[in-house]
């Protein structure tokens, strides 16, 4: 999408609301749903990639040193990575109250 949902007129929608631009969901930042966010303790991390495999939002990406780093634009704060991490390297912290 080239503009926000709320800017579209009804006649500007494709028939059937088909989205012809692939990968446009990347522009939808679901991170602001979050109440808790994951924090990685690198000295404990064994770089196994379990968090990357289990993350339901594909929010983890591998960095150049092989660590899996969460992209907070997409992380909804579900905590599955914390639950699945075999060495307890991730913990959840509460977001600040707005």
């Amino acid at each position, binding site marked *: 999408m080239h503009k*926000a*949902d*709320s800017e*579209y*007129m*009804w*006649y500007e*929608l*494709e*028939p*059937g*609301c*088909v*989205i*012809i631009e*692939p990968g*446009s969901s990347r522009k939808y930042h679901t991170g602001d749903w979050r109440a808790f966010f994951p924090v990685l303790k690198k000295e404990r991390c064994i770089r196994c990639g379990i968090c990357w495999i289990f993350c339901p939002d594909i929010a983890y990406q591998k960095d150049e040193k092989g660590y899996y780093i969460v992209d907070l634009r997409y992380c909804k704060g579900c905590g599955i990575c914390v639950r699945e991490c075999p060495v307890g390297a991730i913990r959840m912290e509460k977001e600040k109250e707005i």
Partner: protein
Amino acid sequence: MGKHLGMEVSFAAAEAVKLSNVDVVAAYPITPQTHIVERLSEYVASGELDAEFVPVESEHSALSLCVGSEAAGARSFTCTSSQGLALMSEIVYIVPALRLPIVMILVNRSLSGPLSIWNDHSDVMSIRDCGWIQLFVENGQEVFDHVMIAYKIAENHNVLLPVMINMDGFILSHMFEPVELMEQSDVDYYLSPYQPRFVLHPDEPLTMGAYAMPTLFTEAKKAHEEALLASYTHIMRAWEAWGAVSGRSYHPVETFCSEDAETLFITMGSLSETAGEAVRVLRGQGKKAGILKLRLWRPFPFNDFLRSIGNAQRLIVLDRALSPGGPGGPVAGEIRSALYHLENRPQIFNFIAGLGGREVTVGSFLEMFVSSLSGKAFGYRIFGARG
């Protein structure tokens, strides 16, 4: 021109689906729809029809499968009745929102309960607001013709909406009638191969059926409704083009003896034939009676309807479905709305008749006519209920 044959109307419907060269048929058998899909499965098995026939495990799956095949660019067909429609109703609403030009024949049968296999319109009225183009046909020839017409309308890129053809269960589906078939070359001339607007294909990824936030949902609904309203012109053109090929022409509202009529019967589907006989009897007695048949139910042809009622003072509206605890039958409700703004509007006599296969005879229409003459307009009556 094609051959004239006496044949079961269900078989004529299957013949029309074959002539339309569909790619996919997905259906689950349910009385009284069964003969249509049985015959189609035979056509596919014998190689007469080059299509995938998928004997799915439910009607929910039948229409879901058609969504997938149509999205992949295949001309798809399904067919059901009553409980089958109820089971697939979730998907019925999704098809027009995705603007997929699927064609479905709904062989009208009452919804349970009590359990019944016989005809009325309670099934189609349960999904009235689904946003499909909805047609009612009167006899076997109209069933046959409207399969090709439906694909012509649906697949037009200015339309891209599913079309539902309503035919009365048993009264039409299991009746032997004279039908004029069409040559394949004439059908091919009328109906071009399906050119989808969007296709699901890995080489050109796109998304169908995405979630709509509250900021977009209203616009999506508005776009759908505008498409349905705009389909009217293309429905008219598809009928005109069919007239040129077949010599048979159709209109959103058909009339019989309506020009000088003081009383008009308003009917849909096969009841129109019986009403025609009643009008002949009444005209023989010098009574100014006529019929107005609604062929196009969605989009509702308000202008054609208002033009066609002329100077009639009494409208006898037949409903084959009841809206319990409501304002009467669904057809009469819409007609009252259509007339509300007129200063001199005719009186409405709404009869709920023909429920669950109860016969509506020429005599029934004559009885309705007499009670409309003697009384004032009333909300509605359940015709023929004993006691």
